[in-house]
């Protein structure tokens, strides 16, 4: 995995909501795919959607903007969003930007940085 890996999102429906597994770099290029995938899983209006960052290699300000846009959409639909697999650095980004106020952050995985 490295920071040049392109973004991909894999949708996994679940009992209590869908999981969006994100991989590669979450930057400007990710926005359209991310929002489209979210719209897909949000259609039945589940109570909760999990964003899994376990395989992401890079998140920058444009990627954060895409997540904010996703949260705005989720807020309108009344869907709770959770974040899974955040490294401590990504968790720091979520805290700095106050995304942690809006997203349920699940426990951290084993350490790992930008690779």
């Amino acid at each position, binding site marked *: 995995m490295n*920071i*040049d890996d392109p973004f991909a999102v894999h949708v996994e429906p679940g009992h209590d909501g869908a999981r969006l597994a994100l991989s590669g*770099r979450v*930057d400007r290029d990710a926005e359209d795919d991310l929002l489209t995938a979210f719209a897909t899983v949000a259609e039945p209006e589940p109570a909760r959607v999990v964003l899994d960052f376990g395989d992401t290699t*890079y*998140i*920058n*300000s*444009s990627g*954060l*903007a*895409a997540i*904010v*846009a996703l*949260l*705005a959409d989720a*807020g309108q639909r009344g869907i709770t969003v959770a974040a899974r697999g955040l*490294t*401590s*650095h990504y968790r*720091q*980004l979520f805290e*700095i*930007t*106050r*995304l942690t*106020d*809006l997203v349920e952050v699940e426990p951290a995985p084993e*350490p*790992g*940085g*930008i690779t």
Partner: protein
Amino acid sequence: MTEAPPPQEDAAVGPADSEPDRRPRRVWWRRRARRDDDAGPTPAPAAGTRAVEPVDLPANDPLLAYLAQARGPVLVGDLELRTPAVERLREAGVRMLVPLVANAQLVGVVQLGDRLSEQDYSTADRELLEQLAGQAAPALRVGQLVREQQAEIRVRERYEQELQVAQLIQQRFLPTDLPEPAGWRIRPHYRAAREVGGDFYDVLDLPGGRLGLVIGDVTDKGVPAALVMASTRSVLRAAAQRLVDPAKVLARVNEELVRDIPARMFITCLYGVLDPATGEFEFANAGHDLPFVEAHGEITEIDARGMPLAMLPGSIYDKVTVQLDPGARLLLYSDGIAEAHAPDGEMFGFGRTGDLLVDLPRDDGAVDELLARLSAFTGPDWEQEDDVTVVLVDRSAHDHAAVDQYSRRVFHLPSTEGGERDAIRLVQEVLADVDLTDDRRDALSTAVGEAVMNAMEHAHGHDPTKQVEVAVTVRPDLVSVAITDEGGGDALLDTVDDPDIDAKLRGEQTPRGWGLFLVRSLVDEVHETSDGERHTLTLELTRDGAG
């Protein structure tokens, strides 16, 4: 009576402002009007004369010179002089003038009206008056001397107070806590002359671990010089943080000072930027004494020209770069050294100033030894004519461990979409062996990515022919990454508000606009400099376990 002004004064003798004595038949005995005088007792009037309004005798009236030479009392009617004072004496009805002369100086004049008997003054009257004058004059002179001494004491006290104020200002603005980059020793010394001159020095922390070194001298002494020094220091500090190039810093400072500093006052000043990582010293000089560099026993005077600050608008300054290799020393100094004199009047001069560096010890005693050599020339009784200021910069020849802890790598990246990821990779490579935690390294990497992305996109419009410079400096205490673009140099940091996520969710702000906020939030310090063409953001992170 009027007191004659002391011979050295040219002030007119003013009228006294006390109430005129209304008792009859008085001689007017008036003291010179003085704000701070105690009027003292009014001496008894001479009996048998008619009261007259006393006439003030201007110090420059020829009558006074005449009276100083006169032998005894003078009848106004007998005077052949026709001066304004004589005319006014006649108009006032003054009949007789009795000069009071002490030590051949006219110290006062008794003015008498007509005798009450309407007879002329007799010879006996005149003798009596002359005797009286002979006794009164010395007493009056003693009183005058006491008052003059008191005035001198007050002037001296004011002067001492001014000196103290000047010293306070001077001391307040000289830095006490100096940066100490590993492998370098920076030792300033300042010793004020009795009449505090306007010398100053300063050492500034600049982005990327560089140091700004300043030495200067204001023409003038005392409080005015101290105030100009304080204002120069402030303007220079501000300019040094915004601009990098020393020549541009001095040009900017000159433009600001030339408006504000009184004519005939100016400042000589040398300003340089020392990079402890590389030993490069880049400086510009506004008419200050040229610095000396000593390397391998060889002493070189480094020339750089430019007009003193606050002299002319539009001054431009040479920029000169000197390489200070391990073991090299740099001496900045003020003219109080080169212009010091030996007892026989010989000047110390620039040659001897440079030679001060020869075989100077390499420890904290170096500056003391340097000053001792100056003292040996001037002798122990030297009355220091001007401030003596020295900044000695010494790069260690032996502390290789410290030298090895410095490194600088500079990269130039074309401005492409996603080009910031190249910058992140390069920074991570440089920092691979630096003792930063993963979180700190990631935070710096992300901040670098944001700053580079901003430069490539907003400053260069993703034009791949335009390059963004990324300079990574590792110091023992600090890691810094300077990102420079050529996009015109508008300031960014102070113009961008912090993003508000609630407003973004409500659709009142774009979801974007996190970049500079992340930069500011992820590193310990961000500095922004710009010279109108090149714009630099320097991101700094204190190394774990250091500082």
